[in-house]
């Protein structure tokens, strides 16, 4: 009988304790994500020297970023590395390291940003690809004579010179010093060698043809006449 009374007492106290709780209208203590929006221009004009190499973006790339808004009113921007970016049409846009990598096709694709497989936001993006039409060798060290059939320049033995590759695009836009997706070569390494940056080191007297190629499709050459000063 005694324990029955104590049981009833415990239930009464419990009911009293449970009755103390009241629902609160306060917002949650921990901020919540309200939205994530893809920022930046809706449309991009990309001067591209890329034809198929999606792993190595070309000249103009568009960095993607997003803004996240929280329930406490604060915002955070950037987020390019935290989010997973996807394009629904990879013939128009592929996204490499948070950047739109230009492809050969102009068009419109939907870009989405997701995190932990939850897609937060999508945005239509129209990309216009303007292809490279020609490349020209320039130098501030060498006096290059430009001609329709070939470009020529004189150089001294045992010297160093720097070359650059300038690109011209279909819209006549000229971009100086293309450095990606190009290859430099020399026809005669005893006369002159050239490294991947277009830096020439001359050797003995003679002639060498320096060539710069963009995906083997677009190239330009310079006939170098090396003499002893």
């Amino acid at each position: 009988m005694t324990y029955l009374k104590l049981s009833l007492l415990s239930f009464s106290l419990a009911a009293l304790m449970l009755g103390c709780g009241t629902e609160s209208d306060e917002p949650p203590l921990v901020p919540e994500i309200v939205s994530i929006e893809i920022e930046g221009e809706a449309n991009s004009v990309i001067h591209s020297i890329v034809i198929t190499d999606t792993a190595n973006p070309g000249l103009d790339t568009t960095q993607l970023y997003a803004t996240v808004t929280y329930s406490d009113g604060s915002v955070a921007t950037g987020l390019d590395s935290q989010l997973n970016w996807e394009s629904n049409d990879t013939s128009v846009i592929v996204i490499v390291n948070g950047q739109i990598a230009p492809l050969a096709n102009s068009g419109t694709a939907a870009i989405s940003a997701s995190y932990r497989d939850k897609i937060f936001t999508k945005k239509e993006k129209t990309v216009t690809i303007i292809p490279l039409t020609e490349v020209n060798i320039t130098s501030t060290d060498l006096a290059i004579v430009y001609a329709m059939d070939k470009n020529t320049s004189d150089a001294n033995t045992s010297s160093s010179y720097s070359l650059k590759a300038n690109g011209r695009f279909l819209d006549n836009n000229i971009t100086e010093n293309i450095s990606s997706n190009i290859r430099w070569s020399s026809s005669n390494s005893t006369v002159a060698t050239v490294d991947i940056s277009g830096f020439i080191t001359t050797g003995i007297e003679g002639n060498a043809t320096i060539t710069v190629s963009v995906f083997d499709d677009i190239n330009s050459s310079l006939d170098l006449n090396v003499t002893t000063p």
Partner: protein
Amino acid sequence: MRILLVLLTLYISLFADKKGYVGFSIEDSTEYFAVGERDQFASAPQFKIKGGYGDISGYAVEASFSYMDYAQNVFSENDGAALMLDITLYKGWDVGYSLYPYLGVGIGMGDMKVDRQLESSLTFSSFNFGGGLRYVISNTYDFDIGLNYKLRTWQTISLVADKINVTSHLVNPYIGINYHF
């Protein structure tokens, strides 16, 4: 009087022979959360069922399973209930008059339903200690009243651009009944 003392000794000795017990308790807790410069108290009633083995006047190990539902939203606009499992080691003493004060220390873990963009539930772990008093009602039942203190560490919450680590501590008084066998 002598007969009463004999009977009291008899049923306490019978009680002492019973190593196992099950019980339940009803608890209330006030938990203090701090996130950055904001803090919040959240109250939550709890219901606990438990089972243990050991001596009421010595050492005992207890496993308990609790249900808790905060009165305030802490993690989302639609926080759900939390379920938790605690393992506690108790040390009790016989101070006479059928009273057995005790102290306990233990660990716990749990899971709470939330309605967040990136999380549907949050796990937590806790370090617990507390004490109480058991009053032996009969040779099979005791009445239990006490107070627990818990330090909780919650699962890291992602905000995409940031991560939030939440810790909390709570005090919960409780009352309950145990059945010994």
